[in-house]
């Protein structure tokens, strides 16, 4: 049985409908990637699941329980926790205070054990426990955001662009972390712009386009489908056809034809 299940979900803001007839499911223990362009409705989907954006039609169920008309705090208590886009930390509060906020729905007695397990998972956060969250680097802030979510003892995480603004090395750490969390029984639905990275570690993926599910399948199937790659994932990255090569080719073409405006001498001058 699916842990999270959406059936024909329609939602949006006021009169503008963003999501239409969206159905998806995530089984316990899975990592599922949700992919799509800016404005496709990915964040709206997560916010609808969490009850932040009202459901206009269809049904959402978590752990066999319908979520319609259930307030967000109760959803968190039921074990479904969102790690919001751009982290949304309490910037002036310390790392530890941020984590304690995450345990708001837990019993007081559980907090110190929960804190201890987050510090075991993220040793750097123990070092920084007294530091204001806004003074951390981007990667460390993302760790606080995830650790804060884990303080609620979730069965499932909804991660909204966890790699946003992170250096390549840190992106890899975050992805590894999501995989490691699965080993601890945490299911994940991950929204990512970094689609290929996300799919490389996911079991399945859904591609969302202008508010509808355009296609879905196992991660290998999506990554192996040339049409999907071309339409939604920015094309295949093989050999000389990688994005970088394409950009370089365009640059050369531009500079080559009438790109003289750019001042070729100065550019040449900059090269050793």
């Amino acid at each position, binding site marked *: 049985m699916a842990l999270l299940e959406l059936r024909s979900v329609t939602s949006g803001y006021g009169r503008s409908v963003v999501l239409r007839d969206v159905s998806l499911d995530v089984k316990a223990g899975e990592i599922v990637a949700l992919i799509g362009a*800016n404005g496709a409705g990915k964040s709206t989907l997560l916010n609808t699941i969490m009850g932040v954006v009202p459901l206009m039609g269809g049904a959402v169920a978590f752990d066999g329980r319908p979520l319609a008309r259930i307030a967000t705090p109760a959803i968190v208590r039921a074990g479904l926790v969102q790690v919001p886009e*751009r982290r949304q930390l309490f910037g002036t509060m310390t790392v530890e205070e941020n984590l304690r906020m995450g345990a708001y729905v837990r019993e007081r007695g559980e907090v110190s054990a929960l804190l201890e397990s987050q510090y075991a998972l993220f040793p750097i956060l123990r070092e920084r426990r007294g530091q204001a969250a806004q003074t951390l680097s981007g990667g460390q802030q993302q760790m606080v955001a995830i650790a804060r979510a884990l303080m609620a003892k979730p069965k499932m995480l909804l991660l909204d662009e966890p790699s946003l603004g992170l250096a390549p*090395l*840190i992106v890899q750490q975050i992805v590894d972390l999501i995989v490691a969390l699965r080993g601890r029984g945490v299911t994940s639905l991950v929204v990512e712009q970094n*689609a290929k990275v996300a799919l490389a570690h996911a079991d399945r993926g859904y591609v969302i386009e202008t508010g509808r599910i355009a296609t879905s399948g196992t991660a290998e199937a999506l990554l192996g489908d040339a049409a999907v790659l071309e339409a939604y994932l920015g094309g295949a990255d093989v050999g000389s056809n990688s*994005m*970088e090569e394409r950009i370089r080719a365009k*640059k050369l073409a531009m500079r080559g034809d009438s790109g003289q405006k750019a001042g070729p001498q100065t*550019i040449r001058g900059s090269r050793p």
Partner: protein
Amino acid sequence: MGQVLRGQQGAAMAAFVAIVAAYPLIFSNAYLIGVGIAAGAMAAGTVGFVLLIGYAHQLALGQAAFCIVGGYVSALATTRWGWDPLVALIAGALLAMLLAYAIGKPILKLRGFILAMASLALQLLLIAVLQEQEYTGKALGIPGVPKFGVFGIRLDSDLAFYYVTWAFVLAAIVVGLNINASRVGRALKAIASSEMAASSVGIDVTRHKVQMFVISAGMASISGSLTVHYLRVMGPHIFDFAYSLNIVTAVIAGGLMSIWGGALGASIFIAIREIVRNAGIPYLESIVMGVLTCFVLIAFPRGFAGLVAGAARRLAGAPAASAAAGASPAPRVEAEAAPAAGALTLSGVSKSFGNLRAVSDVGFAAPAGAITALIGPNGAGKTTLFNLVCGFQPLDGGAVAFAGRDIGTLLPNEIAALGIGRTFQNLQLFGNLTVLENVMCGAHRHTAAGILEVSARLPSVGREEAATRARALECLRFVGLEAAAGRYPSELPFGHQRLVEIARALALKPALLLMDEPASGLNDTETERLADLILAINRLGVTILLIEHDIRLVMGVADHVVVLHHGEKIAEGPPDEVRRDPQVVSAYLGQ
């Protein structure tokens, strides 16, 4: 959208004039006309309050201090020196504006509640001083102020005084509306939203704040003078602390974000005060106003003016907000940037925050016309370096030169005015302005209409606005977001908001563009489109310095790559060389 608004403002103006003209014809007894005068006298000042607090978000709550200035000048000049009341009123307003100009710069450095307290303290100080002065009649004040007059003609009839008073209100409203609809009004709202972003597009934050403080002081002084001629006496406690609070509650009830709200709020307040007094419970008006304010803030936060505007819009049928009209020509953004003039050179640049060396002895050059990328782990000091270049933080050491000129000590808006545009990692769009207006703010430094021209709405102002609008639309077209012109930034997805920032920076016609993680939040397809955009901007002759984590984008577009780690430069060179540098691989790239 401008057309629609102007139509609405026209209707509002017609309704305003009709109501003001008809009131004394309907309520013709002397008492009610007197009430009308009192309301008008207050309204002349509250309009300025909306400009200062509603639009510019400067919580100078003690503006009644300038009512005191106007009140005393009028009272003294007409009773002791035999001046014409109109001349005295103008003299009072000029003195108030002079005072406001003198204290404006230091006091407006303060923000939020501290500014509110300082401003109220100044008002209380003024009251304390004046009630000890023999010359101003101490606590008893100055009685026997004559009726108002214009050029030697005394207005014996209250009806005439009523109309003259409301003519001042009308003038204040016209000035307010003109400022609101201009580049100055836009700049004020930008300042209210983000002072950092406002100065990054070349808006002189201090200057605009002081201007509004001065105008608001002038209007408050006129309000004080009119009130004194209505009361026929001036004393130190007429414009006291409670009066200041009454102005605030009146403006909130009327509508803090509307020029009309100022006039409406004053009328509502005076009406309530009179009703309460007639019911035999004086001094209760503050309580009633307090309750009304709470109610308004909860029920319709945009005040009565917002309520009326909303109702009018529903009556007229919701107008479609179509900002762009017709098919548009191909982008003409080019030919505006100065070719190859944007070289940026850093040498020995250092910055510490407490014990943390955020940037340490960094030197490199971003050659004119080239694309230079700045990469490094999170927390390496890249954004700090941008802030140093843009003048948001002072340098601890080293030098920054742009186009051969040392810019290390310039203010952010001066640096922007030299032609350095930037986008922000965490987005600093003006949430209270539409997408188009955001981009129009970017063209601020290329428009010249000053506060006087704007207040009088000279024809040149309209032409300049139209040109700015056209240019902003071009910039939006350039980034592919023309269709979003009439929407608010918060309605757009994160990735598109980034493009709005790029369009805003382009409207500045930069010679150098600093982009802070433009691809963050974009998917692969969008990132590749961003690469096209960066190359197209560069092709216009704009020098680019780019902070970015998407290594494919960096290696694809950059001519030159600089790598920072722990605030220090660890590598520099062409992309392929940097990619192989073992230090860069272990600190940043991984694998």
